[in-house]
């Protein structure tokens, strides 16, 4: 039953929102429509998580990984855009699966924005970090074996994240997609994009081994 709800969201609700958005709002307020879509895209994973009988260990593990990535974002506040959140989310999903990665990513976005400012961008960050974690979980086996692939994934994730957030900025500032503004924003956020990508690579390479060891040990010791 719940499975059908998640399919329903993807197949019916999201297109419905998009169509209603374009029909009802002649000024093409894509920003708000895309906001609803971002929120709806997070729902299936959340519903799935609620439906399953999850034991307390897994629950609290996700909570503490979330708290750790928020802590990382707070600890590294002095260096702008240089944050270990993506790296931690990817490492979580590598060891505990796609779902845990998605939840850690999206909840980190919600919670860390209590510190860094809640706003209409929150759903985008939720979906952005969530999906980066989800994909990391799908690639888990390969990412664990090859450090080159891991670094590559980190770099691509940083660039994609930045480019996606820039699309949102254009929607927000323009109400519609404006290519020249998008290019201008892409160019002006280039340093940030570079720092995102570089910090992801650094943190993934730096953290992968030691954190992986800790997580594996916890898995064996407590039978996760």
């Amino acid at each position: 039953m719940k499975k059908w709800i998640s399919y329903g969201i993807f197949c019916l609700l999201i297109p419905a929102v998009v169509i209603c958005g374009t029909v009802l709002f002649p000024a093409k307020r894509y920003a708000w429509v895309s906001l609803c879509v971002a929120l709806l895209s997070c729902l299936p994973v959340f519903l799935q998580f609620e439906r399953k009988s999850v034991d307390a260990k897994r629950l609290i593990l996700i909570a503490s990984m979330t708290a750790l990535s928020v802590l990382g974002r707070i600890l590294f506040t002095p260096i702008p855009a240089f944050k270990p959140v993506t790296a931690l989310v990817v490492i979580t999903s590598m060891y505990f699966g796609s779902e845990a990665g998605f939840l850690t990513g999206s909840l980190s976005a919600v919670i860390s924005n209590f510190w860094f400012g809640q706003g209409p961008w929150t759903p985008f960050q939720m979906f952005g970090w969530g999906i980066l974690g989800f994909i990391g979980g799908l690639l888990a086996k390969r990412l664990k074996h090859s450090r080159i692939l891991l670094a590559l994934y980190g770099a691509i994730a940083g660039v994609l994240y930045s480019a996606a957030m820039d699309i949102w900025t254009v929607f927000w500032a323009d109400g519609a997609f404006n290519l020249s503004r998008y290019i201008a924003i892409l160019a002006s956020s280039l340093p940030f994009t570079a720092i995102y990508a570089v910090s992801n690579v650094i943190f993934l390479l730096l953290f992968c081994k030691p954190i992986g060891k800790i997580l594996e040990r916890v898995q064996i010791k407590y039978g996760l």
Partner: protein
Amino acid sequence: MKAFANIHPLVEMTYFMSVLIVSMFFSHPVLQTEALIGGILFCAALQGKKAARDIGFYLTLFLMVAVTNPLFSHNGVTPLFFLNGNPVTLEAVLYGVLLAVTVIGVLLWCKAYGEIMTSDKFLYLFGKAIPKLSLVLSMALRFIPAYLRQSRRVSRAQKAMGLYSGKSITDRVKNQARVFIAMISWSLENAMETSASMKARGYGKKGRTNFSLFRFYASDGVLLCLCLLLFMIPIMGAACGITRFTFYPRVDKIETTPAAIVVYAAFGMLALLPFILEVKEAIVWNCYRSKI
């Protein structure tokens, strides 16, 4: 002054959602201005003098959004002047101003939401619908201050061991990373212990009861009905096409039919509701004080 914070969370949530929906989806100058004014007054009432600190930030943002729109958008039929051969049109300028008003209005309302809807209210509202996620959320929120404290302890201990961090960026990153890794194994061990304790106390068993301090008074019911009524009027207005307002190719005239005025008044009332409540509370409070 936090009269609005003492209302039942359900009413508060309904209120914020209705204001945010209107201010996000309606691109009408009157409604947007009302939302902005309501947001400014609400934040000022909530934060007092602290709110004045952010004025600079909001003004810069306002100018950035308002000025950049005509630079990137050349729609409209009334050119004001030409820049690099591209027309800067009156319509684009006005649309930029409206966008800036919307953006800042939504930001202010989000800020007020953050002040009013504290995590305990959020969990009270959604604890039944999404029990596991809200448990994860509340645990993570509780972990963060604890982890911050612990990370300070770890960092002090490492300093005492002679692991100083230099001034250079690589050194700082390395130092933070070292503290962070130590934090991870500590926090996971801690988490596993907590989960064992939860299990021992019967987490996941049926028949669990909740405790909360929130009570739904008659006045909350009245406020909820008022809020829904005031929200429905602009929605009806949108359905009848009253709130339709376009900037391109030419700016529409603002409608002044009786129906349109009812819509403006209703949303104005909705946007100002918390401010009115705060002012009323302040007056009542002063009245009581003067009687003493």
